[in-house]
C-alpha cells in the first residue's frame, strides 16, 4: 500500500507491504524490512536485527506528529492543508492581504480603524498569549478594508483578524 505525506514542504511517497509478521518499507530505492508493533496508541516499535527503536506518534487534526531519533516531524497527508498555522508572525505574504493570528491568544489592541491608510511596517493588531505580546505589522503600505476583532477577543491560531488592501 502506498501513502503520500508532506514533510517540511516536500512530498514523500512510502510503500508498506505486510509479509507475515514483517513489514517491507520502501521509499524510492531505499528498502528495509522490520517487524512493526504498535505497542500503544502512540508508540510504534521497529524491530530489526540487532536493533529495536521506538517511534512516537500523535494525531492533531489533519496532521501527524511523529517523534523519531530525538526529532519531531510534522506529516500531513498529501493533498490536505499543509499547515494550519499559515500566516506566521511575519504578517501576511504578498498574495494574502489578510492578517491572521499567529497563535491562539487574546487581542490586546487594535491599532487601526477601517478605511485607514497604513504605512509598511505599521502596527495593526497586538495579540497576546502567555504574557507575550505579538505585534502584527503591515507587510506593505495599504488600506484597512475590514476589521474582524475587538480588543479583548480570544482568537484561535490562523483566525483572520483584519484585511488589508495593498497599495499598488
Amino acid at each position: 500500500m502506498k501513502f503520500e505525506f508532506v514533510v517540511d514542504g516536500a512530498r514523500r511517497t512510502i510503500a508498506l507491504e505486510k509479509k507475515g509478521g514483517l513489514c517491507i518499507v520502501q521509499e524510492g530505492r531505499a528498502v528495509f524490512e522490520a517487524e512493526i508493533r504498535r505497542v500503544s496508541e502512540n508508540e510504534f516499535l521497529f524491530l530489526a536485527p540487532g536493533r529495536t527503536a521506538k517511534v512516537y506518534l500523535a494525531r492533531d487534526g489533519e496532521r501527524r506528529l511523529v517523534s523519531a531519533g530525538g526529532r519531531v516531524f510534522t506529516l500531513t497527508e498529501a493533498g490536505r492543508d499543509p499547515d494550519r498555522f499559515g500566516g506566521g508572525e511575519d504578517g501576511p505574504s504578498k498574495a494574502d492581504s489578510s492578517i491572521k493570528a499567529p497563535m491562539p491568544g487574546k487581542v490586546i489592541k487594535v491599532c487601526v480603524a477601517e478605511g485607514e491608510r497604513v504605512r509598511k511596517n505599521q502596527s495593526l493588531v497586538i495579540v497576546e498569549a502567555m504574557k507575550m505580546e505579538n505585534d502584527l505589522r503591515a507587510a506593505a503600505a495599504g488600506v484597512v478594508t475590514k476589521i474582524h476583532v475587538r480588543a479583548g477577543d480570544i482568537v484561535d491560531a490562523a483566525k483572520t483578524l483584519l484585511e488589508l488592501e495593498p497599495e499598488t
Partner: protein
Amino acid sequence: MFDKILVANRGEIAVRVVRACREMGIASVAVFSDVDRTSLHVQMADEAVPIGPAPAAESYLRMDRILEAARSTGAAAIHPGYGFLAENAAFARLCEAEGIVFIGPGSNALELVGDKVRARQAMVKAGIPIVPGLESVPLTMEEYAAAARGLGYPVIVKASAGGGGKGMRIVREAGELAAAVEAGRREAGSSFGDESVYLEKYIEEPRHVEFQVLADNHGRMVHLFERECSIQRRHQKLVEETPSPALDSALRERMGETAQNVMRAAGYANAGTVEFLLDKDRNFYFLEVNARLQVEHPVTELVTGVDLVRRQILIAAGEPLGLDQADLRQSGHAIECRIYAEDAAKGFLPSPGPILFLKEPRGPGVRLDSGVYAGWRVPIHYDPILAKLIVWAEDRDRACRRMAAALRDYVVLGIHTTIGFLGDVVCHPRFEAGCTDTGFIGRHFEGWQEARGDEETLRLALAAAACDEMDGGGAGEARVPGRSGDGPTPWKTLGGWRLGRRESDEI
C-alpha cells in the same frame, strides 16, 4: 511547624512546593483559576480552592480571594512560588495583618527590594556597585528622553516592580524610546499590576551571574554560591548552570560577600537571590534582588545538597538556619534547561494547546520539575514554562552531554517546545567552551531552524504514519499491545536504518 500551607501559584513551581510540603508532613492547599481545574498542581495538593476566571488579574493576582481560601481551609502559611504575588509587598503585609505567614521576606524588605529604584538608592548608600541608571521613575516622556540622553544610548527600559524580563526593552536610539516605554508600561501593568518603568544604562554582552542567599529571622545568613544565567532570549533565561565558568574562587568569594551585604542592607530574611551583571573585564554590578524562590533554584540544590523550598518553610516557621558558610561546598556541576511552550523556529512564538503525547527523560543525575501531563491543554493565559529539566554530573563537560542526551529523550507532541532548540544550544561549541553571555542566543542562534533529521529516521516516521493510516488513524477499533507480532520471526534486512544520529540530510 505549620500544619497546612496554601500554595498561591500554579504549574511546575506549585507542584514543587506541594512536594516539599508532603515530604515535611504538611498538608497543602492548591488554588486554581477556571482553566486550571484539571492542572497537575491541583491534582497533587491535598485540597484545592477555585479563585476565579482564567486571567491572572481575576484569579492568581486576587489577594482577597487567596486570603479567603487560606482562611477557609485553615492554612497557617502561604507559599507564593515565583511570579504572581511572590514579590508583592502589599500581599505580604495583608498576610501579616491576617496572622498568616507569608513564606518569603518580610513586607518591609520586600517593599524595598521590590521597588527597583528604591533598592538602587539603598545599595548606593551601602557602597554596592550598581549599573548607572535613574534614581526615580520619570513622569513625562520628555523626562524619559532627557534621562536617556544623560545616560547615553543604548539604554534599557525596566519595570520598576518587575523581574523575569517583563516590561524590558533595549533602546538604541532616541526615536525608539517612546514606543519602548509605552510597550514596557503595558507589559509591566499586565504582569505586575504596576506600570512604572525606569531606565538603566545598557551594558553590552555581559554575563548574568546571581547569588543565592538564605537568611533566617535570627540574623544568620549564608550564600549558596552562584548561578550563571547568561543564556537568555527576550531577557528571559533559558539555560542556567552552576558553578559559573566565569568565576574563580577569589571572584566568587567577593561576589558572595557583596551579595550578603546587599541582603543585610535590605534587612532581608528567607531565600533570595542577588543578581549581578559581570562585564568582560570581570567588573560586577548589582542588578536587583529577586525576593522569591527562583525558577532556577534546582541547580543550586543539586550542587549544594540543600533543599531550598524546605529551607524556606523552616525559616518562615522561625527555625534557625543551622547552616554555616564554611560547611557549604559546590560539588559537581548542574545545568537547567527551561522547557517552554514556544516555537523557537518562529521567534519563540507562544505555542499553547493540547499535549497529545508526553515522554519524560529519566536516568542518573536527571531531574525533571514539571507541571504538565499528557492529555492536558496548555492555556494561553500564563507563562509558557512547562517544565525544567535539570542534570547533575561530576563536571561541566559531562553535565553538557548528560543534558543533551536527556533532551533527546524528551518527547512532547501536540505543541511546540524549546526542547530541540535547547539541544542545539547545549551542543554548541561556544556553550561547551563555557563562552556564554547574554548576547549568545542572538549571536549564534538568529534564524535558528531545527536540523532536518537524517533520511533513515524520517523513513521510520513515515512508516509509523503509514501504519497509523492503515490502522484507520487510531480511531475505531481498539488495539491490543503487541498484537501484530507473534514471537520471533526469521527475517532479513534489505536496507539499513539507524536512529539517533545528528548528521545532516544525506541526500
